């Protein structure tokens, strides 16, 4: 039996690359509007750049942890299972719990660490381009390039066997798809959790040189309960380790891969800018920032909950209400950037909020930037005649996914 997909909430609605006109209308009129959240609950949608930045920067008045007070429809899990499943989920914590968890991982994502990874990422990109070239035109860019490159990178970094990829790639993609019924998404979450617990047990028995091994060696704890750990312990519990690793595995799959697919299509639709990225080595750094801004593939971060009465754009919002930040709208706010709906890779800079803002700013941003800076020019140089094999209107966009992107992108060269 198939169910009709639910109506998309306003903050997820797009017209190909662009947020829908109604979202811009919210931004240009009252700035904050009462909407229905992804899970059918009432929420406030914040649409202007400065307001979104203010909300995201203020973890005291806008809490990530309090969302736990809201129970999801059709969730069969016990309170104990939910508590276990949330251990280590940084996106569901506030400081100081968040600070403690994040600091286990910051050493792994420094600018210097990323530079050390660079040669390996170049090698991974080249291997995938070699395979595409050997198989010959046409190809689907998503499974042959956009998805496997970030997938292999995060697997090697974390210590997840890439041989298991068919299993977890399928799972991570469906877990965040709004058109999949909630019970199935919860079942996938449970499977993912069980898979990661198995890997954590393996890392504890024989810690390798990867991130799981490092976390076990430097912060591993036996018999520490999560309740004790949350009092600021320097050790990490097994539940937290599985939670952190699950989050990184999903985040590593569903973000950069969609930027690579959608970003390539955006460049194909702007051939002069594509030529610039292909031919000028200095063009890629600003180009990645502008593609991030213009595409803003994360519709909204985790919903915040007000911890006190607040006012946003003149709107009074009582304590205990949900607040959603519309990132694509904020990144196309004319008060933030001139001519916001135009893609101009020459002007890109880091002031956009496609990676979020505040303490939950994307942990993997330095890795994502490096992957994109290597992958886009390498693809365009290898296949200078790259072209979409489908008319624009037939290219399948991932409308129902928490992270925007393309289901597939058939290309020729």
């Amino acid at each position, binding site marked *: 039996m198939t169910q009709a997909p639910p109506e998309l909430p306003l903050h997820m609605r797009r017209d190909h690359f662009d947020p829908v006109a109604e979202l811009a209308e919210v931004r240009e009129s009252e700035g904050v509007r009462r909407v229905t959240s992804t899970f059918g609950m009432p929420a406030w949608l914040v649409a202007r750049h400065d307001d979104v930045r203010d909300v995201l920067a203020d973890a005291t008045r806008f809490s990530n942890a309090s969302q736990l007070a809201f129970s999801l429809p059709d969730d069969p899990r016990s309170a104990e299972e939910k508590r276990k499943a949330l251990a280590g989920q940084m996106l569901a914590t506030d400081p100081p719990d968040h600070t403690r968890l994040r*600091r286990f991982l910051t050493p792994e994502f420094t600018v*210097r660490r990323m530079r050390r990874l660079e040669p390996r990422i170049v090698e991974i990109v080249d291997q995938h381009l070699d395979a595409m070239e050997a198989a010959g035109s046409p190809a689907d860019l998503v499974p042959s390039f956009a998805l496997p490159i970030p997938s292999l990178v995060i697997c090697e970094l974390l210590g997840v066997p890439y041989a298991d990829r068919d299993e977890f790639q399928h799972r991570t993609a469906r877990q965040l798809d709004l058109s999949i019924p909630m019970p199935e998404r919860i079942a996938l979450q449970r499977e993912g959790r069980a898979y990661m617990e198995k890997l954590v047990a393996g890392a504890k028995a024989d810690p390798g040189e990867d991130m799981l091994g490092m976390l076990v060696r430097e912060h591993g704890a036996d018999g520490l309960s999560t309740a004790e750990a949350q009092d600021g312990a320097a050790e990490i519990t097994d539940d937290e380790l599985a939670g952190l690793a699950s989050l990184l595995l999903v985040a590593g799959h569903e973000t950069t891969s969609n930027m690579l697919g959608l970003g390539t299509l955006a460049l194909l639709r702007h051939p002069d800018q594509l030529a610039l990225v292909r031919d000028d080595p200095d063009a890629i750094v600003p180009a990645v920032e502008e593609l991030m801004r213009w595409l803003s593939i994360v519709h909204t971060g985790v919903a915040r909950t007000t911890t006190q009465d607040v006012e946003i754009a003149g709107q009074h919002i009582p304590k205990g209400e949900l607040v959603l930040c519309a990132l694509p709208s904020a990144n196309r706010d004319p008060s933030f950037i001139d001519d916001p709906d135009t893609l101009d890779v020459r002007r890109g800079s880091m002031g956009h909020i496609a990676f979020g803002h*505040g303490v939950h700013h994307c942990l993997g941003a330095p890795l994502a930037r490096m992957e994109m800076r290597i992958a886009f020019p390498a693809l365009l140089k290898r296949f200078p005649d790259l072209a979409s094999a489908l008319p624009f209107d037939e290219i399948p966009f991932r409308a129902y996914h928490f992270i925007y992107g393309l289901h597939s992108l058939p290309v020729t060269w």
Partner: protein
Amino acid sequence: MKIVADRDVCIGAGLCVGTSDTVFDQDDDGIVVVLVEDPEGADADLAREAVSLCPSSALRIVD
């Protein structure tokens, strides 16, 4: 101008190092280290940009 970093609130996002690696660095834990406390000229401009970009508001300028 003087750059002050609050290492307790820093989340190690590294945007400051990405903006100017002459003014800012990260220690082995990823936490910000200010290399040049009173940058001048172009470095001062980059330092101001880094202060405004910092996601955790860990950086500020004291005149």
